[in-house]
């Protein structure tokens, strides 16, 4: 028997689980690690869900908890396993207008982000998700100006990785 709180949580979480999957994909390099991190993030979000007051959107709050879990609490070190890479299986699109080049570009982007350190990963992820600087600054606990400076540096790093 699930409580109302549990029902609300499951509803909110299931709708937004794509965010968590994307975070797992940039912070891990194979499916096992992905699943481990996904589970840890789920536990962290559930554990703190009762404290979520709805002052911000659930998804905004979810970004913060998920990124923080990925940055600090994840026990297994991010081993760089090149074999059994999940990128081959994960991005297959079943639609008719399936575009292979887009798939390759997405793979390149993910691999590039994986080369960054954990904080830079968070910054670039929030940029790609189109989050305003105010929200990025709040999530990371830095000033907006600082967020802009750091973002520019991280973008430069990623550019170099993507276009060596």
């Amino acid at each position: 028997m699930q409580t109302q709180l549990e029902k609300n949580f499951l509803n909110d979480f299931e709708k937004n689980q794509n965010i968590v999957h994307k975070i797992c994909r940039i912070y891990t390099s194979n499916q096992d690690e992905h699943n481990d991190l996904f589970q840890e993030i789920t536990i962290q979000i559930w554990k703190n869900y009762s404290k979520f007051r709805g002052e911000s959107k659930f998804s905004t709050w979810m970004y913060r908890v998920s990124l923080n879990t990925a940055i600090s609490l994840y026990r297994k070190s991010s081993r760089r396993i090149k074999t059994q890479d999940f990128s081959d299986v994960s991005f297959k699109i079943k639609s008719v207008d399936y575009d292979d080049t887009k798939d390759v570009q997405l793979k390149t982007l993910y691999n590039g982000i994986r080369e960054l350190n954990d904080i830079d990963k968070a910054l670039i992820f929030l940029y790609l998700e189109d989050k305003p600087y105010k929200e990025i600054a709040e999530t990371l606990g830095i000033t907006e100006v600082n967020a802009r400076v750091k973002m520019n540096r991280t973008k430069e790093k990623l550019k170099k990785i993507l276009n060596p």
Partner: protein
Amino acid sequence: MDLANYKKVWKNQPEEQNKISALEIYKMTQSKSNSTVKWIFIIGLLEFVFWFAINHLGTKNGALDPYKKLNLINFIENFNYFHYVVVVLFLILFYRNFSLISTVDNTKKLMTNILLVRKTVKWYVYYNLINVVVFSIILNILIFNTPDGINILSGIDNESFNQEHMKSVFIIVEIVLIAIMLLILWLFYYLLYGILLKKLNKNYK
């Protein structure tokens, strides 16, 4: 290709294929968290039990009997009590650090708290290593200052041995033993906490 174009690719990426069902998510919420900081606390606790048991077994099996003859047992016991008090204080700190870490905080605050975890572990290891050195030095000075101390401890009670010669051999043996013990302890802590901290350290480089 520039980042703006990559951003478009990112936005158009397909939805996750392996969606997790509500039931599976519910099952996950029922499982236990597996965080680094939690493991530091648990391992600290297990380590305490481990050393306590070793000490206890050593005392029971008569490992300390020669020291009784030298009237050094009080010093050893008091030093041990002091050590336990310090370790318990460290365990309290480990627990406090563990409860301070919250994924709801902003990342900067979280990182500051993680830095605290790292520092506490570092000081804990330093304390343990320094403790071994200080304890060994004081114990050796006490043995030296006890008449026939080395003879009683080594079990050799032969006056034909050159006492000065015995002393130099004893000092060399003790220095080598302390060095080996430090190396083993350092390796022990390196394996125990070094691997756990590796992930936490990476973000500060």
